[in-house]
């Protein structure tokens, strides 16, 4: 299976966790990685630059209709929901979901609906239950589900809620998740013929955006 998108959701304690997760990714990491971090509606580009400090991959805040390209780390902008289309992003200012905009569930559900079994969901530290139903959607569509081992999370509520929703998700430490994603990323680029034929029938994807 070639994975085409990784979505990571986190809230309280997320900055430190994300910095550790991203620092562990290899330089040639080839799967687009999308970060949804709860934050204040008027927060600026600080998150993006603090993540950029830790990786050679390109970290950028998403603008509407930006193409999804491998080797990039995309950050959901404050005060918008981030939706995953086939090959690009759309933003939305629809009402907050359970007090959150961006909502992790919204991004995860759209990633699951659009990329099906080629999506990977990761739920990290946080003090609420956002991301749980989204992770379940990814898992139900045949994608991969990772959860930060609650005992190792700064705030265990969010990973615990995700595990309650998806009991068979892989519960790992940040270092282990990072290594697992790194391995996926190395496989991610060229799918060989055998794995290609094992893919379930999905809508044909439009050509990659410029």
């Amino acid at each position, binding site marked *: 299976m070639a994975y085409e998108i990784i979505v990571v959701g986190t809230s309280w304690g997320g900055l430190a966790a994300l910095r550790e997760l991203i620092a562990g990714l290899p330089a040639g990491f080839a799967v687009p990685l999308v970060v949804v971090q709860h934050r204040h509606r*008027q927060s600026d580009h600080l998150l993006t630059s603090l993540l950029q400090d830790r990786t050679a991959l390109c970290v950028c*805040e*998403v*603008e*509407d*209709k*930006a193409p999804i390209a491998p080797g990039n780390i995309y950050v959901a*902008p404050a*005060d*918008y929901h981030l*939706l*995953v*289309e*086939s090959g*690009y992003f*759309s*933003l*939305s*200012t*629809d*009402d907050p979901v359970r007090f959150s905009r961006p909502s992790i569930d*919204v991004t995860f*559900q*759209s990633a699951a*609906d*659009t990329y*099906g079994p080629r999506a990977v969901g990761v739920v990290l530290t946080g003090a609420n239950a956002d991301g749980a139903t989204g992770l379940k959607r990814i898992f*139900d*569509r*045949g994608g991969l589900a990772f959860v930060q081992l609650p005992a190792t999370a700064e705030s265990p509520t969010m990973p615990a809620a995700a595990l309650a929703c998806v009991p068979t998700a892989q519960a790992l430490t940040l270092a282990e998740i990072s290594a697992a994603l790194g391995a996926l990323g190395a496989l991610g680029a060229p799918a060989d013929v055998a794995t290609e034929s094992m893919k*379930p*029938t*999905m*809508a044909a994807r439009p050509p990659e955006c410029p």
Partner: protein
Amino acid sequence: MALPLRPGRSLNGPPLSYDAELERIEIELLLEGVYRHYGFDFRSYAYASIRRRLWKRIEAEQLSSISELQALVLHDTSAMERLLLDLSVSVTAMFRDPGFYQVFRNEVVPLLRTYPFIRVWHAGCSTGEEVYSTAIVLEEEGLLDRTRVYATDINDAVLQQARAGIFPLNRMQEYTENYIRAGGTRSFSEYYTAKYDGALFSPTLTRNVVFSQHNLVTDRSFAEFNVIFCRNVLIYFDRDLQNRVHALFYDSLAMFGVLALGSKESLRFSQYEPCYEKLDPREKLYRKIK
């Protein structure tokens, strides 16, 4: 006669798993039906967000599929009105992105001062938060009297709300903070009267505003403007439709007119980018230069 089934399909029982391709067929059929029966064209809306909004409506109507929603809205006008609200309302706030209004005041207002008469268009004004925010800035800068504002939306119900000028009282604290950060020069509470749970904004703010129905997807340009506001409306459109609307805006702007987009929108993916210059490195204010 046997139907030619696609691989993996069976006529015995429901599909075992989610079928993204079938869902797309259902959504396209529903949008086509709505367009042909009611004339509202959502066929070029961004797929992931329209899918999300359709499913929200399906759950609210206690249905279980897109096709059921299609049957309901085609036969029940009131259900269509509810769906229209879901699909067409953009949620916003007064002085959303205070930094934007600060740059508007500092960079755009001086340009507008040079005109004897100013025409402003709020395209997709929804419930009017931005119309009132901008009117407050123009009033404080002494420009409102020589400005004519056209505030348009596809949806008549939200226009009525915008015209009434009543906003939820429980948002006023947030709006006041935004107003101060946006460089407001007075006390925000001067602009409204609190009554029950609503804040009624002063009708003098809309003395030069015309609220009117206009469909960005199907209607043409109707005047030449010095400023066009269209913030966080195009995010709901696909790239093709965005380009068509950018053509409409380009045709509707006077030379050196200003186009104001949402803070995470960009002309970067539009063919009209070379026709504009940026007025600010950060905020999405563009000036037509050719």
